[in-house]
């Protein structure tokens, strides 16, 4: 079915725009960039239509990549139902965001660069999703990391942007380190990296090895999907352009960790401790990030922490064994979080770059399309039935409730906080009086169109796309007890959060300040994100830097290695200083020396009877 065409279209777009983009007009760049992604999307649809119900994975082998001993790694692509869901999300949401970018990036420099990076990202993301073995997946994994770095640092003339890019890259390295170690262990234990081989032979392998593999994969997933303790890069990644945040840091790349854990479900099924860890990390991250989100004033930072929190939900879903619920939330989250980002991008665009919530307000009338679409996303994420977030979140919480009550309750509280901070942001931005200086203007239709599409998906996506049912061949559905209480509780919490937000920010606008004044210590703690960055700086970064300085550099490098090398050099210099008298630089004296040597040799021949 020519699966390879799916990622190759964006790759071609990347090459064309990357090589010739400087000389092309914007219209041509748009055509190439969006055209390639749309072609890819169309090809995904055609492929999926042609593959039937996909109850059996469809694999295509292109060439042998690595042949070493018994290890044989091919460049293979595979499609099953999980892949199909991811392909649709990536290319579908990706197409919409690409279209949106035309409007958003219209006045930015490096236009062709942006679109070529975006296309490159699409290529790697699709490679990641389509991979039929861990190594090809790793290619995509690293590739999306690279593109993430490139796009976070897109405004490379600003130091905070390049710093954020570096931070994302370095933190991701820790996760990738886990992933590569996991791959090594898989090779050692299974003798293959192919998903098919690994997942069918997982039973009967030593428990310890499987746990180790699962934990290392979890480390990789934590890095990519910004979970505790490796979440710190994602808030900073908002330094990139907003469409990047929407596409990479909300909808697709950060969910790669969830996808990978779901893909490796067979391993996790035999590694209960690691699976438990996934659930714990997920729920703690969800709660933790939500608390930080309560106090952020930068609109994109709010969504960033929200993303981390929602990713925590997905991990929770996967960790309690409801992989399909996690993927379900992944899909709906892609819709409404992309919409929130794009909407806030539209707001930022309207305010000519203003991102601080405190300088917004009353925008409801001025940019109505943006407001209404973002409101759709807000109700979706808050879990208000019957919108998208409700279904997926409810599925996760239900599974969590069956697994461990404390996780359920923490999840429910988080849901309440989610609703609160989302609506806090909405109310701050769109209600009350305008507190800014500029003159807001509605965004062009090329930006609003995607918002409308995503709004529709946020509202109806959960109802119409029953992902768990679709994935049931892969991840069997748990028998659901007929119990409405958990669902009602979580909805109630969500509505309570909305109500609280309305009370705080519409009815009693001075109330928040008084609360802050009362709990100033707690507020400062949350406002400063629990000082995690500072703790990391003091506990990890500084010791490494200092240690490298003191021991590795001054001790080993300078004293030992340089000392040895320079010592030899000095000796040689001393000897050479004597010998260089021979090297007069005068070629005729060299010739005389040679002649002398010849004569000596000949005389030796005469004496030694050369004949």
């Amino acid at each position: 079915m020519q699966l390879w065409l799916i990622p190759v279209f964006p790759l071609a777009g990347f090459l064309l725009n990357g090589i010739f983009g400087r000389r092309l007009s914007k219209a041509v760049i748009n055509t190439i960039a969006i055209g390639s992604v749309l072609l890819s999307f169309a090809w995904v649809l055609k492929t999926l239509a042609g593959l039937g119900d996909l109850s059996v994975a469809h694999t295509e082998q292109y060439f042998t990549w690595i042949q070493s001993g018994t290890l044989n790694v091919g460049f293979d692509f595979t499609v099953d139902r999980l892949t199909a869901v991811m392909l649709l999300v990536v290319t579908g949401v990706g197409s919409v965001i690409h279209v949106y970018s035309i409007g958003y990036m219209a006045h930015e420099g490096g236009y062709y660069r942006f679109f070529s990076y975006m296309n490159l990202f699409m290529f790697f993301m699709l490679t990641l999703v389509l991979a039929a073995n861990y190594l090809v997946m790793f290619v995509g994994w690293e590739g999306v990391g690279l593109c993430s770095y490139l796009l976070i640092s897109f405004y490379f003339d600003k130091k905070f942007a390049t710093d954020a890019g570096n931070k994302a890259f370095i933190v991701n390295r820790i996760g990738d380190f886990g992933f590569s170690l996991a791959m090594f262990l898989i090779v050692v234990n299974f003798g293959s990296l192919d998903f098919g081989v690994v997942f069918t032979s997982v039973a009967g392998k030593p428990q310890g090895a499987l746990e180790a593999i699962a934990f290392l994969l979890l480390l990789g997933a934590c890095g990519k999907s910004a979970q505790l303790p490796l979440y710190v890069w994602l808030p900073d990644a908002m330094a990139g352009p907003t469409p990047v945040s929407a596409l990479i840091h909300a909808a697709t790349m950060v969910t790669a960790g969830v996808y990978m854990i779901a893909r490796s479900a067979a391993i996790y099924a035999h590694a209960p401790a690691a699976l438990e860890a996934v659930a714990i990390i997920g729920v703690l991250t969800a709660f933790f990030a939500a608390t930080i989100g309560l106090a952020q004033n930068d609109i994109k930072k709010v969504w960033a922490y929200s993303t981390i929190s929602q990713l925590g939900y997905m991990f929770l879903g996967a960790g309690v064994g409801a992989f399909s619920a996690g993927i379900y939330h992944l899909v709906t989250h892609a819709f409404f979080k992309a919409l929130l980002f794009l909407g806030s991008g539209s707001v930022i665009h309207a305010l000519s770059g203003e991102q601080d919530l405190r300088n917004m307000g009353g925008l409801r009338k001025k940019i109505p399309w943006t407001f209404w679409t973002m409101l759709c996303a807000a109700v979706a994420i808050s879990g208000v039935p019957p919108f998208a977030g409700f279904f997926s979140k409810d599925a996760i919480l239900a599974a969590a409730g069956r697994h461990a009550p404390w996780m359920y309750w923490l999840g429910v509280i988080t849901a309440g906080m989610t609703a609160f901070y989302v609506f806090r942001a909405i109310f701050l931005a769109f209600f009350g009086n305008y507190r800014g200086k500029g003159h807001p203007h509605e965004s062009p239709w090329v930006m609003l169109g995607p918002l409308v599409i995503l709004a529709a998906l946020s509202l109806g996506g959960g109802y119409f796309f029953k992902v768990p049912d679709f994935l049931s061949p892969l991840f069997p559905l748990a028998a659901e007890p007929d119990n409405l209480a958990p669902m009602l509780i979580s909805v109630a919490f969500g509505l309570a959060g909305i109500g609280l937000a309305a009370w705080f920010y519409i009815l009693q606008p001075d109330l928040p300040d008084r609360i802050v004044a009362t709990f100033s210590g707690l507020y400062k703690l949350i406002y400063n994100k629990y000082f995690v960055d500072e703790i990391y700086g003091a506990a990890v970064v500084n010791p490494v830097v200092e240690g490298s300085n003191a021991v590795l550099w001054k001790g080993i490098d300078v004293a030992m290695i340089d000392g040895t090398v320079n010592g030899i050099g000095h000796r040689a210099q001393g000897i050479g200083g004597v010998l260089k008298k021979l090297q007069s630089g005068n070629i005729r004296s060299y010739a005389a020396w040679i002649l002398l040597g010849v004569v000596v040799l000949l005389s030796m021949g005469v004496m030694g009877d050369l004949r």
Partner: protein
Amino acid sequence: MNVILFLIFAAIAVVCGVNVVVQTHPISSAISLIGVMGSLAVLFLLLGAEFLAAVQVIVYAGAVMVLFVFVIMLLNAGVEIRQGRALLAQVLGIPLLFAFLGLMAYFTRSMFPSGRDVRFGEFHYGSAADIGRALFTQYLLPFEVISVLILIAILGAVVLAQKELD
């Protein structure tokens, strides 16, 4: 006849060779060197290497030395200035040279005391056909290698000359 011809052309060769060394103007040295090459070509003929004699004149006298003369003209090289610091070459040079010559002569005399006498016409394996046959059968690989060498030399000369033009 053989002896006379040999002596004449050997004398020309040696005289011209000495001239190469003692003349101070490079162009006189070059002309003398052409003389050496010409007389060596005749000696080659006497030794039966008729093809090489022709090649000697065509390649050496006709091409290589023309290049030399050309460069001398181009650079307008004048009489050389006798100033240098190669003390070793000045002091050691002459005695070493005589020692070298003496040793070589000694070797030749002692190693070939009864070498065959050279008579013109006795050896006739030096025709173009013989050389060609040897070159394209037994020495095919060296021949190809040396053609690559020539190609490299052409490229090198072009590159160097090009740099000079810029």
